[in-house]
């Protein structure tokens, strides 16, 4: 009997583990006894329900989503372009290597602070997101292009298959697992980076701005509630990604286990 489609995943034990986690949280919050230090799960949930119905909630969340997606979109475009070129031409990779290494090694707060000096507050999170997610996408594309089966490339040469057809029917499908993994990792990173940048740049609307405001007011339950919003954002995009790539993964896995 095969377990399809989520092999090795037992939802019952995952749910049980989540419940245990909430129970531990509740227990510790009772022991601490101060909402300002550690709010209880129900206080956090209550706060979440309250802020979810305020008129500014939708505006803040969509501002953050818009920044995240535009940052991710720019990084994805640049990553595809530069990663594709570097994967095909080692010279391009050598030229880009120092820049990519520097970008990848720079602490996210350093980028935020530099961006704060250079740009308008609302653009800072977008800029930082581009810089933080670009290396992930770029490196996955380079690796993906290197992983394209040389024998299939040779087949294309032997049959004089044109560049366009080769790109769409050999390179892109070979890259698919690398694109999927790059996209998923980069999107997960996106929300963390956007919110961190918003906390420091405090644009008028944004999940990070709300977090900062709640912290300044010492409203810890609200800090927790907005944190939950950020976690939900991440979980939702991850789920969307899984659903989008499911069909393709099923085709690729077909017969592989037989």
């Amino acid at each position, binding site marked *: 009997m095969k377990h399809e489609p989520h092999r090795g995943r037992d939802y019952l034990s995952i749910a049980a583990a989540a419940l245990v986690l909430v129970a531990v949280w509740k227990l510790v919050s009772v022991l601490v006894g101060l909402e300002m230090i550690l709010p209880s799960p129900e206080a956090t949930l209550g706060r979440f329900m309250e802020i979810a119905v305020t008129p500014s909630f939708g505006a803040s969340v969509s501002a953050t989503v818009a920044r995240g997606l535009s940052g991710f979109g720019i990084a994805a475009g640049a990553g595809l372009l530069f990663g594709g070129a570097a994967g095909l031409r080692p010279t391009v990779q050598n030229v880009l290597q120092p820049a990519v290494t520097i970008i990848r090694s720079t602490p996210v707060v350093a980028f935020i602070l530099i961006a704060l000096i250079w740009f308008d507050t609302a653009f800072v999170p977008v800029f930082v997101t581009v810089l933080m997610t670009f290396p992930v996408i770029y490196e996955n594309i380079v690796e993906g292009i290197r992983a394209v089966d040389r*024998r*299939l490339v*040779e*087949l294309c*040469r*032997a*049959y*004089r*298959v*044109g560049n366009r*057809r080769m790109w769409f*029917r*050999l390179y892109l*499908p070979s890259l*698919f697992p690398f694109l999927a993994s790059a996209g998923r990792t980069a999107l997960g990173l996106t929300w963390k980076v956007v919110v961190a940048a918003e906390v420091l740049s405090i644009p008028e609307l944004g999940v990070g701005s709300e977090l900062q405001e709640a912290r300044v007011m010492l409203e810890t339950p609200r800090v927790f509630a907005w944190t939950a919003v950020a976690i939900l954002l991440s979980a939702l995009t991850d789920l969307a990604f899984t659903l989008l790539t499911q069909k393709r993964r099923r*085709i*690729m896995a*077909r*017969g*592989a286990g*037989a």
Partner: protein
Amino acid sequence: MSFTVKGLSKQFEELPVIQKMNLEVPDNGVTTLLGPSGCGKTTLLRTMAGLIEPDVGTIEGLDREEVTFLFQEPRLLPWETVFSNVEFVLPPAWSREERHAAVSAILADVQMSDFSAYYPAELSGGMAQRVALGRAFVYPGRVLLLDEPFQGLDFSLQLALIGVFKRLLRTHPRTSVFVTHSVREALLVGDTLVRLSERPARVVEVFVNDLSPQERRVDSEAFARRERELYRAIGGWTG
């Protein structure tokens, strides 16, 4: 389309693989290049296909636009169906209807019509090589180069695929160059047999396969006799 290999040499690093090779490939028959493993016959074939540039020498009279190549492995795109894999190599100028008709016809010829919607991972090795054979013949070239295409398969499958290959040749005539290290295979498919030396490859002898098409089968007396003679002439290396 006949063509001529003239003074061809090729070495990799310091290792000479082909040395001053001269060879005539006659029009419309099967020329088998028979030589021991690692003697440079695959390199020669790749040079004919333009996948490798020779160090010196030329190949005259061969239009690369006419060449198709059958590799040792099927080399199918794992994410495309059998049908799409065959269609993949057709010239871009062909219309949708032309492509569809050509692919359907060739899949029927290699007895893979029932599997046209299957993915490569769902096929056995023999089935996948049938698809590759169909792909080699669907392309409208006049020259077909084959690099030990049936070696990975067990004996009965080899014979079956050789049968398919010969049948395809009757309906789709090609000037074929068939590389093999097996005397038996060379006698089964070859009209002209070219014996190559150990590396670096030189032509040792060229002879015409005098067995009639009816005799070119493993259960014929004449075939068995001819095969024995050839084994004696060559010595130890064949499989």
